[in-house]
């Protein structure tokens, strides 16, 4: 295996494109290096992106936030403006692993690892986050269109994610992410729910609801958003939200939860998540 640590995105893309063997992008390494050590991958080239300055910074502008692909969970949590604007996204990213893992893990890595249970992904989808993908050309892809199956992404050979963008926080908006795990910390989601919503005169005007760990890919559930748009999140709306979420699930049975259990929990958790997002948006 060769190790390269380019200092520009262009150089990184060119290294990946030129490699005839198996090439991998190294961000935080908290998934990739585990796979390397367990002999699940046999790379010919690893391209470390953490020497590329643009990939290590969080930029705030009028259009929102641009989070470099190498930014660690710990550094997301330290960015006060980001925490204030998108608390749900930061909470989701900060739920991943221990402090040791937080020191390295990245949202772009969480996305490219493409686990159905990736914690930051439903929160990003709810927030309307986009991935800036660079290869021969530069393209912007909605986060929900990046993961195509367990461990599979829509990125072509030679492409990498340079940054994740989050829109500017509209007025009267809030987001939240909750996950259910059998223990209190350090586990993989049985169900994860990300919700972002915007109020107009106390009524939910816009909403995005995303579910994790209940299907081969994280889901954007439009029917669940529809169930709460136009409401003040009254009991009927919450029930409709729960039903839509449970109906959208297409989970597997595993040691963490059965299909039936996951479907039920998705609804329960969606209600709780929506309440937090609604309160953060200033709803009463």
């Amino acid at each position, binding site marked *: 295996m060769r*190790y390269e640590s380019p200092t520009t995105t262009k150089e990184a893309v060119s290294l990946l494109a030129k490699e005839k063997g198996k090439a991998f992008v*190294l961000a935080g390494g908290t998934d990739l290096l*585990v796979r390397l*050590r367990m002999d699940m991958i046999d*790379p010919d080239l690893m391209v*470390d992106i953490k020497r590329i300055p643009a990939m290590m910074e969080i930029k705030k502008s009028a259009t929102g936030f641009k989070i470099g692909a190498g930014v660690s969970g710990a550094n997301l949590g330290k960015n006060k403006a980001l925490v204030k604007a998108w608390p749900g996204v930061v909470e989701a990213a900060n739920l991943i*692993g221990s*402090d040791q893992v937080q020191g*390295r893990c990245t949202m772009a890595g969480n996305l490219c690892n493409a686990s159905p249970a990736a914690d930051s992904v439903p929160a990003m989808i709810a927030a309307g986050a986009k991935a800036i993908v660079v290869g021969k050309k530069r393209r912007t892809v909605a986060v929900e269109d990046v993961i195509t199956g367990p461990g599979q992404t829509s990125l072509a050979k030679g492409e990498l994610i340079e940054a994740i963008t989050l829109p500017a926080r509209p007025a009267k908006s809030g987001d939240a992410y909750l996950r259910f795990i059998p223990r209190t910390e*350090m586990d993989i989601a049985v169900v994860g729910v990300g919700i972002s919503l915007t109020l107009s005169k106390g009524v939910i005007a816009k909403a995005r609801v995303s579910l994790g760990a209940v299907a081969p890919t994280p889901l954007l559930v439009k029917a669940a958003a529809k169930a709460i748009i136009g409401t003040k999140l009254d009991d009927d709306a919450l029930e409709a939200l729960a039903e839509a979420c449970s109906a959208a699930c297409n989970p597997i049975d595993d040691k963490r939860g059965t299909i039936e259990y996951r479907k039920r929990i998705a609804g329960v958790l969606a209600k709780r998540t929506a309440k937090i997002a609604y309160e953060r948006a200033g709803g009463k």
Partner: protein
Amino acid sequence: MSGVHVTTTINDDPIEYVCPADESLLDVLRDRLGLMGAKEGCGTGDCGACSITLDGQLVCSCLVLGAEAEGRSITTVEGMASGEKLHPLQKQFIDNAALQCGICTPGFLVASKALLDENPDPTETEIRYALAGNLCRCTGYDKIVKAVQAAAKDLRKQNKKK
């Protein structure tokens, strides 16, 4: 072997080494540099026995490549004591019997130091969350938490005197 030549700083000492591109920083520390403090428990970032700091950030050295350390600053448990004088955390771990077999201890010490550097007066809950990435399979965690609380107190006193 196509080695990677790395120049870095470990516990304030300039260090150079050559390692294979796929070798972990943990293996470099232990097998090339003779720094045996960091331990390999799981090798997958779950147990924290290999905890070190990299540019001030607490990380598992089993999930860092040796090649990544170029130009960085690393601290390990070997850098905690000043000469013969133990760090207050090390002293309190002994006084509180916060270790039995000792495999997890270097990781706990490094993680506890990282916590106290950021937060000199953590609550018990904060300590337990901060050490959630370190596993101990003999002592149980109460004695470790007590040792960290006692060391935090010692360090606050020390810093007041300064």
